[in-house]
């Protein structure tokens, strides 16, 4: 059944989304109507105005779901299943043209050449200033000073239109022409022609949007997509050629060569033996910087201010055309896929923005169903399942092994022929260690069970020891004074601050976590039981006394029931705090548990699993609380009525 649902996921999500929207509007209208018709309690501040109103509950739930469907792009995927694939192709073009665009003041404020020139000039000025403390001799200082001057004038001459090599100018013009050509192809409805059988197969074979870890299918599946993909390849080639063009020219080429030679010559004539380490370092830094500036200028990335105008115009026109060609896709991107878009990397496309970190409800549900399958689970362990466990193992757990040591006699040694004769001692030991045949019973297991079990175990010991001590402290000056410092010593420390220590002492397995939770529950239980005991009405105790009750009977029959509301509230609080502490402790260490699952998913940036664990933790926490509320209502109906 699940597979059928999964197959029609898109349709179901679309339907649910529409129904939610309609329901939201309907509930809102209904709610407004009722407000308008209600004249009887129109006084603001009357608490009765807050009673009832299931339609607002529905509206609230629907709002959350609509927002989730919308911002996770689940709705977009349902209504425009191909949009991500097409946007991926568009993104490919964007990525391809980006090296060219980044040269011009399109996204940035300055022409790339302008900012390069400004930076290089500033650094040359800095070199002038650094010369004084560079550790050179006076003669060298003059030489290097002259070198910086030469570098500066080479840089300046590159910015002059007169010095550009005609060959370079021609190549620039060629690039502009090629961009124009590819723009024409983009505008041409026939480009790139019919898809080949191989292409079609490749496109159809890839998993759909969100069906695999690749997220967005890479190969184009629509006509528009194919066009963008084809253009992207060509643009990438043009951009590559364009970035290879260097500004070379007879005038400054000669100068640059001269500078290079001089640097080599200066380095060769240098004798380091007489210098101190600090001076040597300053020198080396300076020479390194000079070399860096030399290489930069030799790269020829600075062009005259208007030399690239032709290319800039072509790129702008191309971008405008690409924008036009996207057509409806632009609106889908802007409206159906809010706060983010599809971006193309080197080999694949991915969702960026809320579509990425907010998993789609349908995917989340599918993930939950998938990892709920006991054969899959998470890291080889089911979320919640059962296993057959022999009763003997459990009996062995409870019977201490040293019982066998008490049996008279000696443990047998092996015989010369290699056999071992069992005696009474070995038989008792077998029973004590659970090593005897018995029937198996199903026992729950899995991440969820482990987490629940830890909380319940910690809580159990916390109640078992905390309640008696709390009652005792409420009744005895000695107990209050003696144990109060102990509890107040550790209780104010946030439980998680204890976690590293406790986990180191007790190990990362269950013992440590249970002890940590026990500490949490114990303090809360002691305090609540103490409050309960202290709050017992004196007249009730007097009454019990004059009815002939003994001290023990008074504790059991008067003080304990009278403290029950506080104790149960304490348990309710303990469960909540333990639940929170447990998850964090499981994140710190361990190999099972919901917190462990979430932590592994975090390391793998698996947002869906993270959300599944968040939702699971929320639902279980709510469940615990509801159970406790039910228990409280059932066991102490007299609360507040004494």
């Amino acid at each position: 059944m699940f597979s059928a649902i999964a197959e029609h996921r898109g349709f179901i999500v679309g339907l649910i989304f529409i129904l939610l929207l309609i329901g939201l509007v309907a509930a809102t209208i209904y709610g407004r109507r009722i407000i308008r018709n209600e004249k009887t309690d129109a006084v603001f501040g009357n608490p009765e105005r807050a009673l009832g109103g299931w339609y607002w509950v529905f509206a609230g739930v629907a709002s959350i779901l609509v927002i989730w469907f919308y911002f996770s792009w689940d709705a977009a995927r349902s209504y425009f299943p191909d949009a991500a694939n097409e946007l991926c192709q568009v993104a490919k073009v964007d990525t391809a043209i980006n090296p060219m665009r980044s040269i011009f003041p399109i996204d940035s404020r300055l022409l790339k050449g302008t900012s390069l020139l400004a930076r290089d000039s500033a650094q040359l000025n800095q070199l002038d200033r650094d010369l004084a403390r560079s550790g050179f001799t006076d003669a060298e200082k003059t030489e290097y000073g002259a070198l910086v001057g030469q570098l500066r004038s080479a840089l300046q001459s590159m910015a002059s239109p007169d010095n550009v090599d005609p060959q370079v100018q021609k190549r620039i013009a060629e690039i502009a022409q090629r961009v124009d050509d590819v723009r024409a192809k983009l505008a041409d409805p026939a480009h790139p022609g019919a898809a080949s059988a191989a292409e079609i197969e490749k496109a159809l074979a890839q998993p759909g949007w969100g069906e695999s870890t690749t997220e967005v299918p890479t190969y184009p599946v629509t006509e528009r997509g194919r066009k963008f993909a084809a253009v992207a390849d060509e643009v990438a080639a043009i951009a590559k050629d364009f970035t290879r063009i260097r500004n070379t020219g007879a005038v400054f080429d000669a100068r640059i060569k001269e500078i290079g030679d001089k640097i080599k010559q200066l380095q060769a004539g240098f004798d380091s033996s007489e210098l101190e380490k600090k001076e040597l370092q300053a020198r080396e830094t300076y020479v390194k910087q000079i070399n860096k500036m030399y290489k930069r200028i030799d790269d020829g990335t600075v062009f005259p201010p208007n030399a690239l105008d032709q290319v800039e115009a072509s790129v702008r026109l191309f971008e405008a055309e690409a924008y036009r060609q996207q057509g409806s896709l632009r609106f889908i991107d802007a409206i159906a896929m809010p706060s983010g878009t599809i971006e193309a990397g080197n080999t694949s496309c991915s969702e960026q923005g809320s579509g990425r970190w907010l998993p789609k409800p349908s995917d989340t549900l599918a993930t939950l169903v998938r990892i709920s399958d006991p054969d899959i689970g998470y890291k080889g362990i089911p979320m919640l399942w059962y296993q057959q466990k022999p009763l003997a193992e459990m009996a062995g757990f409870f019977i201490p092994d040293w019982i066998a040591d008490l049996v008279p006699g000696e443990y047998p040694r092996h015989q010369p022929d290699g056999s071992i004769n069992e005696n009474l001692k070995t038989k008792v030991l077998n029973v004590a260690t659970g090593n005897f045949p018995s029937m198996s019973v199903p026992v729950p297991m899995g991440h969820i069970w482990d987490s629940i079990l830890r909380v319940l175990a910690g809580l159990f010991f916390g109640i078992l020891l905390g309640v008696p001590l709390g009652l005792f402290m409420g009744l005895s000056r000695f107990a209050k004074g003696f144990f109060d410092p102990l509890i107040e010593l550790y209780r104010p420390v946030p439980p998680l601050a204890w976690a590293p220590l406790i986990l180191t002492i007790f190990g990362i397995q269950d013992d440590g976590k249970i002890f940590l939770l026990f500490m949490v529950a114990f303090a809360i239980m002691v305090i609540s039981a103490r409050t309960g005991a202290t709050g017992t009405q004196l007249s009730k105790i007097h009454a019990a006394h004059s009815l002939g009750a003994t001290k023990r009977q008074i504790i059991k029959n008067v003080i304990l029931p009278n403290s029950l509301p506080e104790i149960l509230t304490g348990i309710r609080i303990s469960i909540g705090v333990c639940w929170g502490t447990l998850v964090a402790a499981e994140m710190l260490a361990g190999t099972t548990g919901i917190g462990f699952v979430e932590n592994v998913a975090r390391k793998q940036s698996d947002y869906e699993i993270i959300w599944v664990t968040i939702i699971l933790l929320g639902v279980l926490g709510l469940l615990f609380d509801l159970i406790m509320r039910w228990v409280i209502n059932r066991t102490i109906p007299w609360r507040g009525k004494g």
Partner: protein
Amino acid sequence: MSELVADSIDMTFHTPAGEAVQALKDVSFSLKQGELLSVLGPSGCGKTTLLNLIAGFLRPTGGVLSLNNREIDGPGVERGMVFQQGALFEWLTVAQNVDFGLRMKKHNKKETAKKVEEWLEIVGLQGFGDTPTYQLSGGMQQRVALARCLINDPDLILMDEPLGALDALTREKMQSLVLKIWKETGKTIMIITHSVEEALLLGERLFVMAPRPGRLHKEYRLPFAEWGLEGDLRDIKNHPQFVQNREEILSMIWNMEEEIMGKTL
């Protein structure tokens, strides 16, 4: 024969602030088996303190209290107590409240159940055995408290304003109930009240106490309790002797209260 004897009882409280409050000074009296005593006095004159001393919840700082020639040291089943607010165990049902004392003594279960039935009938609560006490009205709760105390068969019944929180009608019914029980069981009863009428009606003997320090001011012997066993309570209240006594005691207490107010103001 059971007899309660108070021999020059002194009671001084020491507050946490270090002050000493003398609540009772030189209180002496004796109470014979089957007597019905009501205690009256202005607020703060030590009535509750006296009752708590007899119940054994407090120890006198001076003097001796004894019941049946045995000195009182601590609470005991032979001295049953009915509190102003009932002090019922609200987590138990009516029947569980009533048989509390017997259960603590591990009394035979069958017999206990039978006794509970009997007592619920006497106090007019038959059929309410399984009702949680918090669902009862104030008057019903007070009757449960009465049954809970009486089922233990105490020699002496102590009541601290048992009817104070009840409305006039319920109160009158409860007064008849107390008189009925007194007659039928022949118990010694000591009852504290704020109401002069109630004190006159429910007192074979009546103590008026004076405050600061608390002491016995005046004692009356009255016929009205005997009358109340047969006659209508309202008729008694209109009897000239009743009216005369009432006015006398009222003005006595009024004077005492005025004296205190004058002191404090």
